[in-house]
């Protein structure tokens, strides 16, 4: 079905199920319980999960398949965001043209950047992309202020009058999909649980599912095979009559367009952009997401994006008071000591936790969280088998 083989179809269905039910799955704790702060089922964060999932899926199409490590992918995300917000400011507040604009602008930009950077490979390619991204950041921050709004960035103002809109005098436009506001939410109260179904999240989630589906198709296509061939042995590739250059450029541009799509969606959900979106740390983040989840796997990048965004938004909100509350049952001295030990890993220290997690994964699970999952799966299977063979006392013949 859908032109996918059985395994891929299964994966697609699982991902579809999980994203559609995310408001439930991410809110497992009752509102009044102490664990409620670990709930991630609020619109803003759920939107981030899927949008950065798209960003990472696209990044993985380049890095996972061809092995070219771009260290400047945030530039495409940023450019996509700028393109989208101008579309909203000038043409229409509907998110569809804005998102399209984000993809197109990022695509054009990545043709130019890719054409130049792909003249080199390995670390030189990475450095070139990093240089491009930092240049873009610096330009957006200073020289290009008329287009980018400089340090403060761009947002939709009450003076913006897009061509296709019927705003009243002085009314500030809002992103919508044929009239449906992105911030529109439906709340469901069941007992002590509160589930939020947000229009913006579902739109972003559907876009992510499409992006994920397309990425599966690319992975399984002749083009995907060629990209893996490039990663494996470029010499053999050239001497087999295949030109690696247009292949890598195409992968680079597709990947850049995914980043632009993510950038456009970010604007559609929250109508503002700043240059910091292109800063090198943002480029580094998508590298971490992909490696953490599993480079070259289908679902890995989405998992990695989820884990990192979860930590960034949830772990970072736990402060000293919360810790004291948790460990209040302990004797005072011990409580202080434990809090002292745990504190560096939470709140602003969440980066430390991420760093340790990242190191552990790279050292022990080179295939990322996906490999971890596969190992657990195998272990469970083997345990079942061991029982079967161990339990059977009858002779084989």
């Amino acid at each position, binding site marked *: 079905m859908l*032109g996918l*083989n059985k395994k891929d179809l299964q994966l697609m269905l699982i991902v579809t199920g999980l994203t559609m039910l995310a408001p439930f799955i991410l809110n497992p704790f009752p509102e009044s319980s102490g664990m409620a702060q670990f709930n991630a089922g609020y619109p803003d964060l759920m939107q981030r999960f899927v949008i950065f999932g798209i960003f990472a899926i696209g990044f993985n199409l380049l890095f996972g398949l061809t092995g070219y490590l771009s260290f400047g992918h945030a530039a495409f995300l940023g450019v996509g965001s700028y393109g989208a917000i101008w579309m909203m400011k000038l043409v229409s507040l509907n998110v569809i043209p804005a998102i399209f604009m984000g993809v197109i602008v990022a695509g054009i930009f990545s043709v130019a950047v890719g054409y130049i950077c792909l003249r080199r490979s390995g670390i030189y390619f990475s450095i070139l992309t990093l240089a491009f991204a930092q240049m873009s950041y610096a330009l957006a921050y200073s020289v290009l202020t008329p287009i980018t709004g400089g340090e403060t960035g761009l947002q939709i103002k009450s003076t913006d009058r897009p061509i296709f809109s019927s705003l009243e005098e002085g009314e500030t436009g809002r992103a919508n999909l044929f009239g449906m506001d992105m911030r529109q939410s439906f709340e469901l109260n069941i007992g002590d649980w509160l589930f939020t179904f947000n229009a913006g999240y579902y739109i972003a989630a559907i876009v992510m599912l499409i992006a994920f589906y*397309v990425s599966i*198709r*690319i992975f*399984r*296509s*002749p*083009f*995907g*095979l*060629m990209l*893996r*061939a490039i*990663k*494996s*042995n470029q*010499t*053999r*590739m*050239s*001497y*087999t*009559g*295949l*030109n690696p250059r*247009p*292949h890598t450029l*195409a992968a680079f541009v*597709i990947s850049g367009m995914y980043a632009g799509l993510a950038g456009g969606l970010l604007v559609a959900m929250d109508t503002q952009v700043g240059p910091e979106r292109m800063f090198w740390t943002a480029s580094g983040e998508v590298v971490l997401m992909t490696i953490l989840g599993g480079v070259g796997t289908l679902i890995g990048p989405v998992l990695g994006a989820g884990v990192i965004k979860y930590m960034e938004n949830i772990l970072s909100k736990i402060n000293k008071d919360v810790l004291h509350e948790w460990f209040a049952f302990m004797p005072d001295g011990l409580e202080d000591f434990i809090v002292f030990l745990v504190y560096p890993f939470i709140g602003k220290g969440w980066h430390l936790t991420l760093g340790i997690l990242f190191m552990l994964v790279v050292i022990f699970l080179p295939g990322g969280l996906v490999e971890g999952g596969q190992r657990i799966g195998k272990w469970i299977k083997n345990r079942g088998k061991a029982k079967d063979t161990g339990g059977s006392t009858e002779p084989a013949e």
Partner: protein
Amino acid sequence: MGILEVKDVGKRFGGLQALGDVNLSVKENTVHAIIGPNGAGKSTLLNCLVGKLIPDTGSVMFDGQSVLGRTPHEINQMGISRVFQTPEIFGDLTVLENMMIPCFAKRDGAFRMRAIEDMMREKDIVEKAESMLVDMNMADKHHMHAASMSRGDKRRLEIGMCLAQEPRLLLLDEPTAGMARADTNNTIDLLKQISDERDITIAIIEHDMHVVFSLAQRITVLAQGTPLVEDDPENIKGHPKVREAYLGETA
């Protein structure tokens, strides 16, 4: 006129004249061996034929067209395939995938974007790759990781990948170097079979005299970057110049 005509090719590396005025003519549908002591310039000559190196002087014509100034993939698409001294295969891919790539290259050319189709549903490609694996006696290795195979199998796969492109000229650079006797004999048999069964010209660089004299119909002896003699195998064996320059070491 041979299918491959090398005229006055010279190549310098700094102060070293690696090749000087090499002339060589390879006739269609023959096996032509190029032999010579280490450092004679055999690999350099081969690299000049496939676009890896550009000679300083002279011309290289394949089937009436110059190959000079073309990139390796363009030259390959003209009909020249190359087997490397150490097997170059796609180690991360399966054996079947390895074999499918040259089939795609043959059908679709140097670049064609087919990003939505399912590669396993390209029936003609899969069938061709599978039948090639049968020809290479590797049908059972199908889903193996190419990198995990033995050296001899990698060599077989590489030769098979080159043949899948149906090249007119197959170039081999010391295909049996570092191989055990049994693997060497297997490779000889395979190459013999290939040259008997297919319309293909083979140019082989080889160090191992056993291989050369079991395969070649014509031999060029290269020494210090220049061809000493070009003749039939019987005449080469007893040639005094050759004995002096090359066979003398072993005889």
